[in-house]
């Protein structure tokens, strides 16, 4: 109760921030995980693996199992390590937010999901955590829940990643059935079997769709820029450093199983290259700093995918190194943009400038991160880029394409580095921009350390080379592999490509305005963009759903009945035809006069009821019919039924007749043109039921039950009227249920008619 009260007050005044303590202790958990992981680094680099878990669903062979090897170790370390800095940053960034507890709840949920995902040692475990990241990402993107844009973006991300998730699930299930186990280790060992299986291609495509949706590859890429609606710590964490890398992780994880085929190579290389290129073009035209960064993330993801398409050791090594590099600088840059946003209230490039004069520390962090992103020595980014070029040239299938794309997108990255790290800080300060203070330490400390790490590792690449890159590389390639990370490789082709990249990048930066004008024109006249297609698809879906619902569930009861009767007729006709034996020859029995009378009374009554134009006549006809049916029962040895039928029919018709004066006279039952249609439908259904009955009658009835009743009625149940004995003894439960029905019907009718049930006499 107390908590609730303060919670609501918290919304009013920003001073009493609830859950402030959470933000203070929030970095502790990821820090602990990081430390534990670091402690095991020597084991991992020695090639050790850990596996632990419990059976989850024994019947299906599913376990909640975790498995740590070089690859999962690398990812886990990135997730927890960057998590620490994001948590520190978020503590300052989110200060005063009324929903802090919610925010950290989601963030932790995500962290758990992400760690579980990369550490999973079982396909279903992997999938479960995969979807947890999807959910928590949805919750985080829609964190500003009152903003329609945030909701839309969150939904878009959710639907696309879930679409991928569902495909992934099917892919994983197929993979497991081919490999014979859900256990990751057994799957990893079954690569040859899987690739030889005819289901290989479907498996590959389904799993790739899953990975591509998550990692925002073409054509599923558009959700990522929209996801920037999330608070900046979220963008820094989920949408650059971790979650979007889940797809990359999956590609790397499945590399030993699914790679080494042409399909893998071509699909990954082309998709990655296309994604990177498209994202590069889009990045250039952004004026929103965060969006520009988002597109460079897309570039990075495309590049990673492109390199993972290859079997070449150099290419894979490039991918892994670049992955690490990217996580450091991108998270830092997002944080910097967050700081700028926080301090100035805008992220628009056109409204910013001159911040370098007041924000001294931020500018250092920004510059360091941007230099790393741009691939300038001696930052880690440089090593990453050199490796990329080396890898590009080593790609077996299409080195020229890969190299060209790599150079182009890297050049764009250089440009964007300039956009982020130079323009806002050193461009002339726009007049309307108020004077800006340096951010508090909580905000700048994380990006500063992260970009500092980029520099440190660049100077001493061995810190990560042996402990992180090599083990992961060995896991992906399936053989022990060594790699030496160096800043200086001597003058070679990669270096020349680097120089080309810088030149291109700088040219683009300088000519940014013209480029943008040109690109804007280009995009305005582009036929569609993916985001619009998405909207169109959703609209189409809604329209289709509305249409089909309007047709099916149209609110008119007669149509419902028509559909039901038609369906029954159709399936019944099908069943009869299918059965094949038509009971057409039938010896018509000789009927005596009273039987003829009963039958005619029944049929005549039915006909009159069907054609009556006045309700009273219809009631009389129904009465005649009731008498006819009762007579049939009576003549054929069922006196009890006959009496009951007569009484019930009479009572009911008396009731109807009593009601009639209160109801309107018959209006025409239907338009004349519909009469033949309805009559035909009725006739067909009636005929089919008759046929079914006749078909049933073909088999002689052998009823031991009846024999039993006849034999035991007197000696055991002490009654001579077998029907009554059945009702009150043999099948008393039916009768019991039946009086309940009658009782309920009566009470229900009374309540319905709005009478209070009477109490005693009035």
């Amino acid at each position, binding site marked *: 109760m107390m908590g609730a009260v303060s919670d609501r007050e918290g919304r009013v005044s920003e001073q009493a921030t609830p859950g402030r303590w959470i933000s203070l202790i929030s970095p502790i958990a990821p820090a602990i995980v990081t430390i534990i992981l670091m402690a095991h680094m020597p084991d991992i680099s020695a090639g050790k693996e850990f596996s632990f878990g419990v059976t989850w669903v024994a019947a299906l062979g599913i376990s909640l199992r975790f498995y740590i090897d070089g690859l999962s170790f690398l990812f886990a370390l990135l997730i927890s390590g960057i998590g620490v800095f994001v948590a520190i940053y978020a503590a300052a960034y989110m200060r005063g937010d009324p929903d802090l507890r919610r925010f950290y709840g989601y963030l932790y949920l995500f962290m758990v999901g992400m760690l579980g995902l990369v550490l999973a040692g079982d396909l279903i475990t992997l999938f479960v955590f995969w979807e947890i990241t999807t*959910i928590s990402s949805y919750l985080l993107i829609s964190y500003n829940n009152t903003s329609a844009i945030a909701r839309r973006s969150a939904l878009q991300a959710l639907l696309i990643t879930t679409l991928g998730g569902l495909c992934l699930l099917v892919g994983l299930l*197929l993979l497991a059935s081919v490999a014979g186990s859900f256990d990751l280790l057994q799957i990893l060992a079954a690569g040859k079997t899987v690739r030889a299986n005819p289901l290989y291609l479907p498996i590959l495509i389904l799993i790739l769709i899953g990975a591509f949706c998550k990692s925002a590859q073409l054509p599923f890429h558009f959700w990522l820029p929209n996801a920037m609606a999330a608070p900046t710590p979220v963008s820094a964490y989920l949408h650059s450093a971790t979650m979007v890398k889940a797809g990359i992780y999956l590609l790397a994880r499945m590399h030993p199983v699914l790679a080494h085929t042409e399909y893998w190579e071509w699909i990954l290389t082309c998709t990655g290259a296309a994604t990177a290129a498209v994202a590069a073009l889009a990045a250039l035209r952004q004026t929103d700093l965060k969006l520009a960064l988002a597109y460079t993330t897309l570039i990075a993801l495309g590049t990673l995918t492109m390199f993972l398409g290859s079997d070449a050791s150099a290419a894979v090594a490039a991918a892994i190194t670049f992955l690490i590099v990217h996580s450091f600088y991108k998270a830092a840059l997002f944080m910097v943009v967050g700081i700028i946003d926080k301090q100035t209230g805008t992220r628009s490039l056109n409204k910013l400038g001159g911040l370098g004069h007041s924000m001294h520390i931020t500018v250092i962090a920004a510059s360091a991160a941007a230099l790393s992103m741009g691939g300038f020595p001696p930052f880690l980014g440089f090593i990453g880029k050199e490796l990329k070029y080396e890898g590009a040239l080593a790609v077996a299938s299409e080195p020229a394409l890969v190299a060209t794309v790599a150079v182009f997108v890297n050049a764009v990255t250089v440009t964007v580095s300039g956009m982020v790290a130079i323009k806002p800080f050193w461009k002339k300060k726009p007049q309307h921009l108020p004077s800006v203070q340096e951010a508090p330490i909580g905000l700048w400390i994380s990006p500063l350390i992260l970009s500092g790490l980029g520099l440190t590792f660049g100077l001493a690449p061995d810190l990560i080379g042996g402990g992180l890159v090599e083990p992961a590389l060995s896991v992906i390639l399936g053989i022990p592999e060594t790699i030496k990370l160096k800043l200086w490789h001597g003058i070679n082709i990669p270096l020349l490509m680097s120089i080309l990249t810088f030149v291109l990048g700088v040219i683009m930066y300088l000519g940014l305005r013209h480029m943008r004008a040109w690109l804007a024109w280009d995009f305005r006249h582009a036929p569609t963009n993916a985001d619009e297609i998405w909207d169109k698809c959703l609209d189409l879906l809604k329209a289709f759903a509305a249409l089909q619902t309007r047709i099916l569930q149209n609110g008119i009861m007669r149509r419902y009945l028509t559909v039901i009767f038609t369906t029954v007729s159709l399936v019944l006709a099908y069943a009869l035809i299918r059965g094949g034996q038509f009971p057409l020859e039938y010896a018509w029995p000789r009927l005596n006069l009273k039987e003829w009378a009963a039958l005619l009374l029944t049929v005549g009554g039915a006909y009159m009821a069907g054609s009556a134009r006045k309700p009273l006549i219809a009631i009389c006809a129904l009465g005649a019919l009731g008498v006819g049916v009762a007579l049939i029962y009576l003549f054929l040895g069922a006196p009890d039924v006959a009496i009951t039928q007569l009484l019930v029919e009479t009572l009911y018709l008396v009731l109807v007749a009593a009601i009639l004066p209160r109801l309107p006279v018959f209006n025409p039952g239907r338009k004349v043109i519909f009469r033949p249609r309805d009559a035909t439908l009725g006739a067909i259904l009636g005929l089919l039921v008759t046929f079914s009955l006749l078909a049933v009658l073909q088999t002689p009835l052998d009823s031991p039950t009846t024999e039993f009743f006849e034999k035991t009625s007197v000696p055991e149940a002490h009654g001579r009227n077998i029907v009554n004995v059945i009702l009150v003894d043999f099948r008393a439960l039916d009768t019991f249920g039946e009086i309940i029905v009658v009782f309920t019907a009566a009470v229900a009718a009374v309540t319905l008619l709005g009478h209070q049930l009477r109490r005693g006499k009035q």
Partner: protein
Amino acid sequence: MSWLLALPFLIPILTALAAFPARARKLLCGFISVFGCALLLTTTIVILVLVETGGTRAAQMGDWAAPFGITLVADRLSAIMLVISGIVGFCVSLFSLSDIRKYRVKLGFHSFFQLLLAGVCGSFITGDLFNLYVWFEVMLIASFALLVLGGDRIQLDGGIKYVALNLVSTLLMLTSIGMTYGLTGTLNMAQLHISLAAVDNPTAVSALAVLFICAFGIKAAIFPLFFWLPASYHTPPVTVTAVFAGLLTKVGVYTLIRTFTLIFPSELQFPHTILLGTALLTMLTGVLGAAAHYEFRKILAFHIISQIGFLVLGLALNSPLALAGAVFYMIHNIVAKTNLFLISGTAKRLTGSFELSEIGGLYRASPLLSFFFFIAAFSLAGFPPLSGFWAKLLLVKASLDQAAYFVVAVALITGILTLFSMSKIWAEAFLKDHPKDYCQSLQDIPRYERYERLLPVAFLALITLVLGLIPGPLIDYSLAAAGELLKPGEYIEAVLGLDIQYVGNR
């Protein structure tokens, strides 16, 4: 034993009779109802434990030997259905204490509610075809009464369609049962399994099979027979809809499962083929209907249809895994669906409407309610680690095992559309601001009401969560139940005392 098996319908009936004279006193009547439900839940759990430890149990009513009198049978499927009915009954009766207004209680709400439970439980436990018809009628007439209780205009309108279409189903069912008797000379389901297999009359057997599909199909709301459901489910008080949504259609599915595993020989493939096509169309049309609507309960109502499709799919695939999937799905779905309707009621209470465009703000105003909704909704959409994920997993895996890729595709499309419409509710009713800034908080309603509204919801959400985190036991149970269904030897032995070496087709 025979008494124990009779209790699941005797308790609600006696409770109804006890609540009937007390209906003018809301509190007392509600107490009787909740107490009866608690008793029912306990009984059903005892039955479950007995069945789980000692196998299928049968009881002969009136001590008349098996194919002659009426038999009650509790096998694994029946037992779990009874327990879930007990749970739903208990939660809904608790919820009804605050959701059902005094004048509706005075009209006999609790009696009708209990009779509905009696009908549902009777249907689950009976082993006799005609007795099944009787329980269906009890359930039906009670549902009629509940649906129009209070007699609002919209209720009457929906009620007419509901009554009109369901009466057709009832008559179909009655005719089919009569014809089944005419073909085999028995009404006992176990005996029917033996007798029908011996009948050499494919025309009649086929005709009966489709008649049963139609009759139970209307009850179960499968394509294209589901019209009564969206026409009426949004009209009564939400308590009523919640219990309807949880149990009524599932009774239809339950009887479909019984009919096409126990009564009809499973070599008869064509009913399963019909059901398969129907199931896929049901899944799609239902979820599209949900996508087309913007009213809380209407969306949920269409979802019911879509999920019935999944259940029927499990039956249609006719493999142990698929049937187990159907059983698991049924339990999961009953819990989640009932919960969603209950939450929709509280949402209406707090925001004033069911129309998504007119409400909002619940996320901020009632985090707890949002949490429960999120659990139920995303479980329904099949997200791990919630119960719906395992339900979906079982069915998808069963389809893959049979190389029914088309089925998988439809299931996935349905899954994503389900998510679409669930997140629609989430975004509209919870995330966005209330357009009139009217949204109350749970703190604003009286304390008793708060508990009565939240406890059932929390309990059901807990089940969803637990089933999601620890699905093993229920999956094992479902597999065992499916095994029993596909090899009804044990059922027949329990009922008839015959030891039939069941070979079957699987």
